[in-house]
């Protein structure tokens, strides 16, 4: 008995010692990251795509950070902040002793410059001499689509390390927005040296600094020696981001050990990666939703909730997730991902039930689908993070609808036309597939932006529901997060009852990597930080 206990204690101690050893990060080495495409540009204010932000994530930093594997906020370049009781003034106290890669100091003026250059009307005040901010090259897309001009009234540097934002309206997600890529702080000196060239020569305060960019081939970063926080890296000497467009080739490169991480492999390669003893599969539930919407500008969809519900129960979404997402997805109950605060887990979700669907269809006034003309099901022509194969999903849904007597056909366009026509909600569209990848981890960024049709005619699902609209406004104007969570839970229940759209799936991100890559974590926002990564 004692012997056994002794052995157990020994094993325990050894494993603790072992894990402590394994946890001591090793410095040095070059990590090669294989990705599907090259970056478009490296000025965070103007980029829109993941491959550009991926570099920005390592070169720049924002006032607030998102925690590892979560969208909770922690101090970043700002050490603390205060929000005035009326919710209209945000005062950020900045970190001292931070340097940009070009050696210039980070201070309040750099913040005013970085954000001020995106404002349409530049109500900014520098503390020092400041700069004459040049005219915008083009509209800063994220700033515009996050409606920052309608939110921010003025930005002022009160002293060298204090910045004050005055808002035009109470906007609860404002703080989370300040952690997004577009809100990264750039070196004004580097920018002013040649504003047009900055997009190819980024300078920030991040753990890695930019070295070179061979277009369509690779981007090289190296560790920034003067990084302000030495406690968590950077450990790597260099990080190289190689563009390898073909998924299977990228995976072969990983198997050959010539790259360390393989972004977006084919679903079919995941089982192979599992079998390979050299590989690990970092996994993260994606912060996204793929949904099936109704044309709510058009009858019968507009006013017949029973009909919408019948369709929700008729479609075998689990089969779609299992067979088309091939395990890289999760059946959705709500339109926000389960990892997000405010998620309502008490919503039951629509069960796949053909009999119930038939019953609801009859109650809706279309027994066995009679009197319902052939409907169109718009299916996406491209793979998106939330939907790997829109056309296959469309065909699967067609079969399910046929089982309750609804005749439908799949319609598709090229992606640009699809997006444009979908926004117009034309007569020839009945059902449509679409989705969303979240930006800042705030439920407002899904529930209001996608479904509150009363807020703007530009919202992609034109659902006009007064109660929902009120809830969304309340959510925006309440600062307390616990209270906001309750509001969004109510909103999700309302969506379940009214079925403005059918949530289909949240995709799961799996990026296989060599086992010697340590501490590589995927982030729900899709950002890729190599700061604490090291090589065994």
């Amino acid at each position, binding site marked *: 008995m004692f012997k056994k206990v002794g052995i157990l204690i020994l094993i325990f101690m050894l494993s603790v010692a072992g894990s402590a050893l394994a946890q001591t990060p090793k410095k040095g080495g070059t990590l090669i990251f294989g990705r599907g495409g090259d970056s478009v540009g490296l000025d965070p204010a103007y980029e829109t795509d993941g491959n550009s932000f991926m570099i920005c994530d390592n070169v720049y930093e924002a006032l607030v950070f998102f925690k590892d594997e979560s969208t909770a906020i922690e101090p970043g370049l700002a050490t603390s902040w205060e929000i005035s009781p009326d919710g209209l003034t945000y005062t950020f106290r900045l970190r001292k002793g931070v340097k940009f890669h070009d050696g210039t100091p980070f201070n309040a003026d750099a913040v005013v410059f970085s954000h001020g250059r995106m404002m349409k009307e530049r109500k900014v005040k520098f503390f020092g001499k400041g700069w004459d901010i040049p005219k915008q090259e083009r509209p800063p*897309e994220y700033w515009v689509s996050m409606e920052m001009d309608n939110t921010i009234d003025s930005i002022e540097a009160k002293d060298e390390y204090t910045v004050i934002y005055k808002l035009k309206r109470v906007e609860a997600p404002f703080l989370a927005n300040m952690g997004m890529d577009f809100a990264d702080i750039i070196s004004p000196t580097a920018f002013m040296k040649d504003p047009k060239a900055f997009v190819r020569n980024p300078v920030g305060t991040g753990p890695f600094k930019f070295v070179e960019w061979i277009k369509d081939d690779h981007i090289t970063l190296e560790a920034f020696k003067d990084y302000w926080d030495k406690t968590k890296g950077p450990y790597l000497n260099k990080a190289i981001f190689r563009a390898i467009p073909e998924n299977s*080739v990228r995976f*072969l490169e990983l198997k050959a050990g010539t790259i360390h991480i393989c972004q977006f492999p084919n679903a079919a390669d995941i089982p192979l990666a599992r079998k390979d003893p050299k590989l690990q599969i970092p996994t993260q539930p994606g912060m996204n939703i793929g949904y099936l919407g109704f044309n709510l500008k058009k009858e019968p969809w507009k006013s017949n909730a029973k009909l919408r519900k019948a369709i929700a129960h008729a479609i075998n979404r689990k089969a779609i997730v299992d067979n088309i997402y091939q395990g890289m997805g999760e059946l959705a109950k709500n339109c926000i991902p389960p990892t997000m605060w405010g998620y309502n887990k008490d919503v039951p979700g629509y069960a796949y039930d053909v009999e119930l669907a038939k019953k609801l269809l009859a109650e809706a006034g279309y027994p066995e689908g009679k009197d319902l003309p052939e409907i169109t099901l718009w299916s996406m022509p491209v793979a998106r993070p939330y939907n790997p194969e829109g056309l296959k999903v469309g065909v699967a849904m067609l079969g399910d609808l046929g089982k309750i007597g609804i005749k439908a056909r799949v319609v598709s366009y090229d992606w640009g*036309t699809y*997006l444009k026509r979908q926004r117009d909600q034309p007569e020839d569209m009945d059902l449509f597939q*679409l989705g*969303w990848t979240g930006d800042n981890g705030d439920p407002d960024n899904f529930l209001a932006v996608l479904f509150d049709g009363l807020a703007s005619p530009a919202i992609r699902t034109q659902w006009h529901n007064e109660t929902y609209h009120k809830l969304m406004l309340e959510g925006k104007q309440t600062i307390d997060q616990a209270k906001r969570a309750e509001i969004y839970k109510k909103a999700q229940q309302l969506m379940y009852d009214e079925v403005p759209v059918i949530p289909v799936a949240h995709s799961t991100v799996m990026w296989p990597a060599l086992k010697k890559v340590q501490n590589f974590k995927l982030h729900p926002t899709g950002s890729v930080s190599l700061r604490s990564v090291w090589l065994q």
Partner: protein
Amino acid sequence: MIGFIIRRILVVIPTLLGVTIVIFSMLAITPGDPAELLLGERATEDSLEAMREYLGLKKPLYVQYWLFIKRVAKFDLGETIWTRQKVSEEIMDRFPATIELAFAAMIISSFFGVLLGIISAAKQYSWFDYASMLGSLLGVSMPVFWLGLMLMLLFSLTLGWFPMSGRLGVDIDLTTITKFFILDSILTRNWAALKDALMHLALPSMALSTIPLAIVARMTRSSMLEVLRQDYIKTARAKGLSEVKIVFKHALRNGLIPVVTVVGLQFGILLGGAILTETVFAWPGVGKWLFDGVVKRDYMVIQGGSLLVASTFVMINLIVDVLYAIINPRISVK
């Protein structure tokens, strides 16, 4: 001769003008809005309007075309919509990669294609003839995409002889002067880089050469067969010349004339960028760039890229015509 070349170069101008008109009208009738593609799901009416205004898409089409021609006349291809870089710079960054790959593929395919063609013709209906013609049939019909993956599986993953993809190892330092890596590594006497660049070139050029190789082999064979039936060959045989001399000295020069045209045309096609090969082998060339431009409706890339492809084609044709005269003095340039 020089007058002929100058005249031919002048013809380029109306040709290119025609090309721009065709491209412009095709863009006008194909659906798709670059602003919409640029902003994706998160586009709002405001951001779309601002973007269209910025891109100049709200101007009538003929105004857009006029502005474009005015720019081109000043040798300015403008800036791309997506990357906000000068189109000319984007081309200069990628075209050397394409030329290098096309050149390597053409060397392989012309050498082996002509060789196979000659032997097949000289030994018509032999097992070698059947085998090489069957092989070239396979070469023409083999999808490059699949072939590329198979080459990688065999030569990189299993045997480890060649690197799988890319143009140069990321651990190799090379000072670029001309952006032709092979040339640059020779100029800077960087032999490690030269070896690495050649190793990277091996698989993609092999994959890319299959189709032109097959075409060249078949063309050489049929053209040689025709020549070998001519009276002067009979005379040569009657004189008692050796078969090797007959084939290589007397028949080949005439037999090669149509082959030169085919090689020229194939080279022109390859210079336009081999989209599939570039995609499979992550080769940073102009083909994939142009293809992406079409998918993203980047008008500036499409216009600049097609001008490049068109002018390359015209130039290649000109060179072929000049070569004609050199190979066969009976064809005089008028």
